[in-house]
């Protein structure tokens, strides 16, 4: 690596190189140093060598024993992660190749279910339904629309409300809050909401909810979460707007136009690395998306004769974006 300093290299930059290697450089000094560092071979080499020397410093800490149960706790965490990974792999495999697994309740009996449960889904005659006390736990849809079911041990926790006067074709599984029971002379009658009786309404409701969720998620992800002002000698103002999803925009206001044949070019400068071209701004009043994630990096603007891959002039404005 060349160790040639650039013209503006001073002793102060060598001090800042040490702070950069220690990763404690902040604020304007950090911005100033990174802009210099990007062009100065000597500072690049100095930071690299300082880091090499610092890499051995952790070894100077005296060794120490942890708590007696620390290893056990660590291994338990590792085992738990492996188990979770195993379960995830199993479930993804069964989702693609195996038929849907009947839903079981936590307190269900592990015995095999009756052959009736393995029959293809069919409509249930109300009279065949076992009656029993209702529970708070809603049964799975495939368990209720498929039948006949025998009241075996595995089915015991899944109680079904009386359905004597509900035609089989509109027999839907009760879910919390969407079915009520009222009493009539003939006995209790389940009231099924309209949207659950008409498939088209159900579909429309699902689409509506899905749309709301999508729009909500999009809006949330695009919320601005930070604004960073860029500072420099140029008149006007410039700022970087960071959105929650990491997308960023550069907004310039009242900056003089760059002049015929010139543009403003934005740069994202990762710490200790070369500037990366991040977009071109044709005028001094514009908002453009930044190409790249500037979080934890420095953003700078230079005036260039068209889009270039490396800055050819000193930055007009710059600012450090926190991660």
């Amino acid at each position, binding site marked *: *690596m060349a*160790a*040639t*300093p650039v013209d503006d290299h001073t002793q*102060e930059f*060598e*001090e*800042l*190189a*040490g*702070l950069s*290697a*220690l*990763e*404690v*450089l*902040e604020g304007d000094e*950090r911005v100033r140093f990174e802009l210099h560092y990007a062009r100065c071979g*000597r500072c690049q*080499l*100095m930071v*690299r*060598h*300082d*880091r*090499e*020397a*610092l*890499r*051995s*410093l*952790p*070894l*100077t*800490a*005296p*060794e*120490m*024993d*942890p*708590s007696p149960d*620390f*290893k056990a*706790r*660590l*291994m338990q*965490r*590792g*085992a738990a*992660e*492996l188990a979770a990974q195993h379960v995830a792999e199993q479930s993804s495999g069964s989702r693609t190749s195996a038929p849907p697994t009947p839903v079981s309740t936590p307190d269900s009996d592990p015995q095999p279910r009756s052959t009736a449960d393995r029959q293809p889904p069919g409509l249930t005659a109300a009279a065949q339904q076992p009656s029993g006390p209702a529970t708070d736990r809603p049964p799975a849809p495939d368990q209720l629309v498929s039948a006949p079911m025998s009241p075996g041990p595995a089915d015991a926790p899944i109680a079904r409300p009386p359905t004597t006067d509900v035609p089989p074709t509109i027999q839907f599984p009760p879910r919390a809050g969407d079915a009520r029971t009222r009493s009539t002379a003939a006995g209790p009658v389940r009231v099924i909401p309209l949207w659950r009786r008409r498939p088209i309404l159900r579909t429309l409701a699902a689409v509506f909810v899905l749309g709301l969720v999508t729009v909500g998620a999009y809006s949330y992800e695009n919320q601005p979460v930070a604004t960073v002002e860029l500072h420099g000698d140029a008149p006007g103002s410039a700022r970087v707007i960071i959105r929650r999803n990491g997308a960023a925009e550069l907004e310039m206001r009242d900056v003089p136009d760059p002049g015929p044949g010139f543009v403003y070019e934005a740069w994202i400068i*990762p*710490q*200790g690395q070369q500037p990366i071209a991040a977009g071109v701004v044709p005028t001094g009043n514009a908002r453009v998306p930044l190409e790249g994630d500037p979080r*934890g990096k420095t953003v700078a603007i230079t005036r260039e004769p068209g889009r270039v891959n490396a800055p050819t002039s000193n930055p007009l404005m710059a600012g450090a974006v*926190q*991660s």
Partner: protein
Amino acid sequence: VSTPQAPAPELAQLEALYDAHHRQAIGLAYRILNDLGDAEEVVQEVFLSAWRSGHTYNPERGSAQTWLLSMVRNRCIDVIRARRRRPVQPFAEGLDPPDPSDVPAQAASNVDAEAARVALASLPPEQKEVIELAYFGGLSHTEIATQLAAPVGTVKGRIRLGLDRLRTAMGVHQDALSAS
């Protein structure tokens, strides 16, 4: 006759990682955090993180230890800065595994603990102090200046001189710097 079931290979890797480096890692975390509970929490997360990216871990590579300890140090500094509610400057090296082609880094990693202690101890006390406050304390030069009631410029100068001495003491190759 039943024999005990061998641990899964993955868990065996985690155990090997632990057995090889836990005392050094706990010592470093405690040195920075001064709290055994916090130190163990950090070390646990680092070991699990290193274990998850196990394909990058090679016990025969000398740099694995410094890589692991760098992760411990970085996480500890994060904890310290979070305690101070100060924005955290990203670490350029993050959790990246060591680059086997980085020969100087490999050489530096081979410096054993005793040599590192000797090198650090060879610094003048005022230089050693500022480097330790920055490296193990995560303090900026302005914070160090405040803590020591010394001018900022003095602290910067001491850090620079201290790093120069440390490089020499550690045997870091610096011919190119001397020549220019």
